[in-house]
C-alpha cells in the first residue's frame, strides 16, 4: 500500500522528476539531486532494515571468499564462483600446440573423415572432451554417445563405422611454428 502511495506521489511531482531525469548521471541520484538548482529531493523507497543490510554484506563477502579459494585451489567446481582458468596457463614458446580432433570412418569411404568437434555435430564441444580427455581415452566407449549424437543430428547421413579421437600437434620454436602438424590417434571406437 505504501509502495503504491509513494509511486503515486512521485508521478504527481513532475518537476522533481524532470530535474532528476536531467541530472542523474553518476549513480547517486539522491546526492546529485539535492544540490543547488534542484528544489525537490528524489523519492526514496523504504530504507533497508538491519537484516536486509546484514545479508547484503555477509552473502557477497562469503561469495568473495569462495571465489578467492576457487582461484588458489584451481577448481571450477564452485561455478559460478570457480577459478577463472580460461587461457590462464602459461604456454612455452618452444613447446607444442595441441588440438584435439574427432574423425569418423564411414562405409564406402577410403579415409576417415574429420568431423566438426562441436555440439551441433557430435553432441559435445571440443573443450568439454579435452577437459576429460584422460577419461575418454581410458573409456573409448564414451565415443559411442558421440556417434549416436551424430546419427540423431544428421539423420540423412550414413552411420559412422568407427569413431577416432585424434590430436594434431604443432612444434613451436621461439613462438614460431616449425614443420607440419603431426596427427596422432588417441582412441578409436567401433560404433555399435
Amino acid at each position, binding site marked *: 500500500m505504501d509502495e503504491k502511495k*509513494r*509511486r503515486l506521489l*512521485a508521478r504527481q*511531482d513532475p*518537476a*522533481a*522528476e*524532470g530535474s*532528476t*531525469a*536531467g541530472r*542523474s*548521471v*553518476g*549513480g*547517486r541520484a*539522491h546526492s546529485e*539531486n539535492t544540490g543547488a538548482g534542484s528544489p525537490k529531493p*528524489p523519492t*526514496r*523507497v523504504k530504507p533497508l532494515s538491519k537484516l*536486509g543490510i546484514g545479508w*547484503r554484506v555477509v552473502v557477497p563477502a562469503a561469495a568473495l571468499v569462495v*571465489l578467492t579459494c576457487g*582461484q588458489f585451489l584451481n577448481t*571450477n*567446481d*564452485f*561455478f*559460478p564462483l*570457480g*577459478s577463472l582458468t*580460461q587461457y*590462464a*596457463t*602459461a*604456454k612455452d*614458446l618452444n*613447446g607444442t*600446440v595441441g588440438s584435439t580432433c574427432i574423425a569418423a570412418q564411414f562405409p564406402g569411404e577410403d579415409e576417415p573423415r574429420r568431423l566438426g568437434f562441436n*555440439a*551441433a555435430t557430435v*553432441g*559435445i*564441444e571440443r573443450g*568439454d*572432451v*579435452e*577437459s*576429460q580427455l584422460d577419461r575418454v581415452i581410458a573409456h573409448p566407449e564414451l565415443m559411442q*554417445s558421440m556417434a*549416436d*549424437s551424430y546419427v*540423431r*543430428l544428421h539423420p540423412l547421413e550414413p552411420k559412422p563405422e568407427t569413431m577416432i579421437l585424434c590430436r594434431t600437434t604443432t612444434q*613451436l620454436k*621461439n*613462438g*614460431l*611454428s616449425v614443420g607440419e602438424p603431426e596427427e596422432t590417434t588417441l582412441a578409436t571406437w567401433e560404433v555399435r
Partner: protein
Amino acid sequence: MPEVPLARAAVFRVFVYVFIIIDVLTISGDVIAHGWTPEFYQPLWLARVLHIPAVGVLGAQLLLAAIIVFSLLAAAGIIQRISGWAVAISFGAWMFYTQGYGYVAHDHMALVIAAFVLPTIGPARFRDVATTSARAGWALRVVQISVVLTYFYSVLMKWVASGNITHWANGAVIIWALMRRGAEWSKPFLEVPGLLIAAQWATLVFEFLSPVALFLKGRWLYAVVAFFCLFHLMTYLALGIHFLPTVICWAAFLPLEKLVPKRFTGTRTA
C-alpha cells in the same frame, strides 16, 4: 549502501533478461545436445549436492521453454519478484547443464550473479527515474564487482596456474589460441610473436587495473567501459571469443535511466 534510480535497475533488468534468452538459444545452446551425451556429465559441486541428474533432450527443451517464458515476464516487469527468481533458478539449472560437461567458461560469472541479485530489488519501473533505492544500488554494485573480478581474478589465476606471472606474459598463450581457433585474417600475426607477447603484457595490465572502473565517473567511466567492449570485439573477430555474457553486464556501470523515453518517465522538458 549506494542508492541509484529504480529506473536504472528496470532498464538493466531488460538488458539482462533479454540477453539470457539470446544466451540460452545461442551461446549456451549446447544443453539440448548434451541431452544426447549424458555419459559426459561431470556435475559441479552444487549440482552434486542437490543431486541434479544429467539432462535429457526433453528435459532440456522444457527448461529452455521455461527460461524463455520467465525471462519475457521478468523483462516486461510482470510479477517481478516471482518471475525474476524463476529466471534465476531455471537459468542456474541451465548453467549446470552447459558448464557441467567438463569445460567451464568463466564469461558467465557476472551474468549468473546478475540473475540472482536482480530479483532482490523488488518492483522497479521505467517511470521510477526520480526514485532512488539502496536495494537497486546494492544489486548493481554486486554486478559491477562481479564484472571487474572476472578480469582481476583472472590475473590471480594466471599467477597461480603459471607459478610466475611473467611466464604467462612472456609465453605463447595467444599463439596457442590463434593456432587452435584463430580467424584467417589473424593468422599472419603468428609470424610476429613479439607483438603477441606485447599484447599479453597489455592484457595483464588492464585486467589488473580493471577494479579502477568501480571508482570512476563520467567520461572516464565511459572510456573504460568502451575500452573493454572493444577489447572483447577484437578477441571475437580474431579468436571467436566474445565474452558477451560479461560484456552485457558492463551496462551496470552506466546511467541506463537516460535511455528511458520521456513519455515513460512523465517528465517535462524545460
